[in-house]
C-alpha cells in the first residue's frame, strides 16, 4: 500500500508484515495474538522513510512486529502542503494514517531526530494509542522554550548550506548532481515554500512536567558525542519508565552508522514490551530475555541499558 490519503494529504506509506524476512517467514512467537504494530517516524527535510526501510524495519518485522513507515508531509514522496508542518499536526497525521491502514489500537512508535518530537507529542496527545516509545537521537525534551529548537534549526541551516555547496560541487559529476539536486529541491521547497521553519520555531519543548505524565515505557538512545544528548538525560530523569542507552563513539547519525548496536538494544526492549522475538543473530549474553511478560515494566536485570531511575535523580545516567 504505497499511498494513503489522510486529512486530505497524500502520504507515501510502506509496510512490512510481521515475520517478513525471518528465516522461513513463519511465525515463531508464542501465543496467537495479533502482531504488535511498530510505526517509524523519520527526521527533517532531507530524511524520509528510506532511513528505516534499509535499517530497522526489516529486523523489527522479522522479529514479529508489523512495521509501518511513512514520509512526513513535504518529505520523501508524500505531498507537500504550504502549512501544517508543526509537531501537533504531524501527530494528527500519524494517527489519521494509522486509521486509514486499519490500525485503531495502541502502537509502538520509533522516532529518529525530529521524528522523536512527533512521537513524543503523539504519545502525550493520545496516551491510549501509544504502547511504547523508542526515541533515537530525539529532539524535543528541554527545560525551557527556545533552547531546544536552536540546535535543530542551526543543524537545518547547516544542512541547507551543505546541500547548496555540494550541489555546486557535484555539477562536475552529472549523475551525482541528480541526487543532490533533488535533495536540494526538496529542502528548498520545504524551507522556502512552506511554513516549516515558522512552525518549528513556534514549537514548545516537551518539559519535564509533561514527560513525567508519560505512562508508556520509553527507550531513549543517544550518541555519546551528540549535541542532543542532554535531551536523553532529561528523558531518563523525567519519564517514569525510561531506559537510556548511550552509544559510545557515536553522534547524531547513529541510526545509519550504528544500526547493528541499535538493534541489539531495540530488539530485546521490544521483546520485553511488545512480545516480539529476539533473533538468534542479535541475542547476546547481555540481552534481555525474549518474550518476557509485556505487563512488566521492569527490564530484565541483565538488560544492556541503564535501569529506570526515580524522577530528578541523576543516578544511572550514562
Amino acid at each position, binding site marked *: 500500500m504505497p499511498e494513503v490519503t489522510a486529512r486530505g494529504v497524500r502520504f507515501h506509506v510502506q509496510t512490512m508484515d510481521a515475520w517478513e524476512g525471518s528465516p522461513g517467514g513463519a511465525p515463531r512467537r508464542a501465543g496467537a495474538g495479533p502482531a504488535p504494530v511498530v510505526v517509524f517516524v523519520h527526521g527533517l527535510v532531507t530524511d524520509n*522513510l528510506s532511513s528505516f*526501510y*534499509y535499517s530497522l524495519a526489516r529486523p523489527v518485522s522479522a522479529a514479529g512486529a508489523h512495521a509501518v513507515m511513512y514520509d512526513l508531509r513535504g518529505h520523501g514522496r508524500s505531498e507537500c502542503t504550504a502549512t501544517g508542518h508543526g509537531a501537533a499536526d504531524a501527530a494528527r497525521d500519524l494517527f489519521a494514517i494509522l486509521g486509514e491502514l486499519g490500525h485503531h489500537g495502541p502502537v509502538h512508535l520509533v522516532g529518529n531526530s525530529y521524528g522523536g518530537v512527533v512521537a513524543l507529542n503523539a504519545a502525550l496527545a493520545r496516551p491510549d494509542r501509544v504502547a511504547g516509545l523508542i526515541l533515537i537521537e530525539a529532539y524535543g525534551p528541554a527545560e525551557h522554550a527556545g533552547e531546544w529548537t536552536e540546535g535543530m534549526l542551526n543543524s537545518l541551516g547547516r544542512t541547507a548550506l551543505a546541500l547548496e555547496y555540494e550541489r555546486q560541487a557535484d555539477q562536475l559529476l552529472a549523475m551525482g548532481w541528480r541526487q543532490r539536486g533533488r535533495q536540494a529541491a526538496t529542502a528548498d521547497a520545504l524551507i522556502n515554500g512552506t511554513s516549516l521553519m515558522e512552525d518549528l520555531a513556534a514549537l514548545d519543548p516537551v518539559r519535564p512536567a509533561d514527560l513525567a505524565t508519560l505512562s508508556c515505557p520509553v527507550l531513549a538512545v543517544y550518541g555519546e558525542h551528540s549535541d542532543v544528548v542532554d535531551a536523553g538525560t532529561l528523558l531518563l530523569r523525567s519519564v517514569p519508565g525510561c531506559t537510556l542507552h548511550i552509544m559510545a563513539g557515536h553522534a547524531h547519525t547513529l541510526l545509519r552508522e550504528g544500526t547493528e548496536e541499535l538493534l541489539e538494544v531495540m530488539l530485546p526492549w521490544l521483546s520485553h514490551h511488545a512480545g516480539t522475538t529476539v533473533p538468534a543473530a542479535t541475542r547476546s549474553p547481555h540481552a534481555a530475555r525474549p518474550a518476557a511478560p509485556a505487563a512488566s515494566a521492569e527490564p530484565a536485570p541483565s538488560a544492556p541499558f541503564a535501569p529506570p531511575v526515580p524522577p530528578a535523580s541523576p543516578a544511572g545516567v550514562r
Partner: protein
Amino acid sequence: MTSADDGVLAEVVRMLVEVVGEDFLLDVQVGPDTTFNGDLALESIEFVALAEKLRARYGDRGDFAGLVAGMDLDQIMNMTVGDLTQHVEAAHA
C-alpha cells in the same frame, strides 16, 4: 541473456521510468551492468518505490528480503540492474 531476462529487464526499466521520470532515462541506456547509484543516481527513497513496484508485480519474487538481507544501504545502492533481474529470475526458477 534469455528472453525471460529480457522480460524482467523491460519491466524493471518501465518501473524506473515511473519512479524517476522518462526525461532522465532518455539519457541512459539501462542494461544488466547499469548501477542504481553510479549510473542511475537513484535516491534511496526512489529505490524503496521501485521495490514496492517489484513486489506489486512479482509478489514474493520481487521482494528484497532475501536479496538485501545483510546489505547496508551503500551495498544496496551499488547493486546493478542485472543483480536485481537475476534475483527475480532465480526466485522464479
